[in-house]
């Protein structure tokens, strides 16, 4: 089944009886060439790119729950490539370019909307830092514009420009950034992978790895043993739990991050806006809800819920930035579990076990990275070599002293 405007009209006129399921529900086979653990955005994108770009066959994606039920369905849907460091920025810009073509590639409406992201600055020093960051972005082929106060006012006149403590001095704007429908991303990759023969097996929890003579032979699952030539693990949030089964300790702590949605409102937020003096970011969904969030709670947690102090902190950030948000009522809030790495940057690498590959440590930047993470992980799995934009995301970079620490806060995961 191929989606098109013609198909939509035809189905509307014929009672919508021609739609078919977006993917099959196959039983697991005894052996696959490549098994991807984790049916979230990154795992599904990996499977899609393995089949579509790297010509691999006999691929399975194993998901312990239902497809897209983890962090791909729990994030604030922001896509952007406004990083500073050379290890990061080319990768995220590669991801941004993949976002721009993914809907055509997948034949699926993921509602990618390049409505822009505006990072506000409140001091001269912050503006200097943004100028430097913008230049780094331009060097990597991304777009960046430094706005002065009037430029910001023209875009978002409702902001609190004259806050006594944090007046708005300007902002760094990336027009190509924006939002995407997060579930649609998972569904689009799942459907496109399935069409290329990938078996997506839900309700199939990996309970162990079978490792012989330092090489992985397959995975033990709740639906029996599944043999595999190569195993790629993409289970951010549960990385510690899963890799422990392979006897690995990771440079990662699991933390809970909360997010919030208000009741539906008329269009008011032009794109994504981030507060530069506290941790608060906000956008508006097509349904009208204000989608916003802030810091992680800050202590190790696998509970998909947080505590009230962060709710209060986020609310304070919102009120400082745009006091009118105080009139909006909160519709719902939720928590997701993040792989917080020791330098705030992700890992896409082979492990010391032959045939076992790891993708994780996305902190709270995993959603925007979904396409490139899948592409680069597929590149590594298929060719054995890291993709050029992900070459810095190695497991041993900590031991080598080549950390990619955007914030410069050191090995303290809850500060990244």
């Amino acid at each position, binding site marked *: 089944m191929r989606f098109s405007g013609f198909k939509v009209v035809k189905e509307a006129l014929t009672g919508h009886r021609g739609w078919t399921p977006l993917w099959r529900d196959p039983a697991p086979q005894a052996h696959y060439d490549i098994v991807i653990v984790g049916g979230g955005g990154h795992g599904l994108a990996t499977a899609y790119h393995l089949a579509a770009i790297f010509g691999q066959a006999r691929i399975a994606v194993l998901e312990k729950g239902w497809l897209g039920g983890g962090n791909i369905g729990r994030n604030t849907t922001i896509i952007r490539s406004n990083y500073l460091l050379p290890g990061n920025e080319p990768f995220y810009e590669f991801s941004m370019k993949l976002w721009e073509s993914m809907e055509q590639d997948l034949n699926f409406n993921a509602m990618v909307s390049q409505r822009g992201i505006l990072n506000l600055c409140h001091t001269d020093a912050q503006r200097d830092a943004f100028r430097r960051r913008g230049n780094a972005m331009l060097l990597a082929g991304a777009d960046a514009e430094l706005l002065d106060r009037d430029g910001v006012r023209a875009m978002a006149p409702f902001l609190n420009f004259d806050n006594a403590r944090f007046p708005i001095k300007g902002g760094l704007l990336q027009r190509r950034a924006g939002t995407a429908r997060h579930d649609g991303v998972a569904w689009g990759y799942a459907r496109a992978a399935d069409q290329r023969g990938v078996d997506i097996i839900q309700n199939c929890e990996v309970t162990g790895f079978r490792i012989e003579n330092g090489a992985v032979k397959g995975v033990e699952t709740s639906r029996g043993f599944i043999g595999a030539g190569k195993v790629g693990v993409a289970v951010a949030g549960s990385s510690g*739990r899963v890799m*422990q089964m392979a006897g690995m300790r990771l*440079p*990662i702590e699991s933390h809970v991050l909360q997010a919030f949605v208000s009741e539906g409102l008329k269009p008011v937020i032009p794109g994504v806006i981030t507060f530069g003096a506290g941790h608060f970011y906000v956008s508006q969904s097509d349904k009208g809800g204000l989608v916003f969030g802030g810091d992680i709670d800050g*202590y*190790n947690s*696998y509970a998909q819920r947080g*505590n009230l102090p962060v709710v209060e902190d986020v609310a304070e950030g919102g009120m400082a930035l745009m006091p009118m948000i105080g009139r909006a009522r909160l519709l719902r809030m939720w928590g997701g579990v993040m792989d917080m790495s020791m330098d705030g940057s992700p890992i896409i690498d082979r492990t010391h076990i032959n045939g076992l590959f790891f993708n994780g440590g996305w902190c709270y930047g995993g959603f925007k990275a979904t396409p490139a993470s899948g592409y680069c992980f597929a590149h590594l799995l298929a060719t054995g070599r890291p993709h050029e934009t992900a070459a810095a995301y190695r497991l041993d970079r*900590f*031991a080598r002293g080549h950390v990619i620490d955007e914030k410069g806060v050191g090995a303290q995961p809850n500060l990244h």
Partner: protein
Amino acid sequence: MLIPHPLLGPRDAQEFTYLGDAALLNRPDPASGEADFCDYVYLRDNPAGTHRELWYHEYGDRSWLLVTRDTLTHEILDVRMARDVKTGGAA
């Protein structure tokens, strides 16, 4: 989240700063080499379940606490003064 301080009774978790896994108490011997220090600084067990961790009572009596907490439920199982816990031991 309330943390039952051994000296001060139940205190709001907001008064504390979180450092992380209590394994940080077990600093390797300076002569033990880079690999041991790399493990100490960067690698974590990160368990889903019972976790021993260090909290600093920054807006309180400035003591370090060793808190045993369930990372799946946030339930606090045990709190003791970090200074009373022998470093490198089994406590």
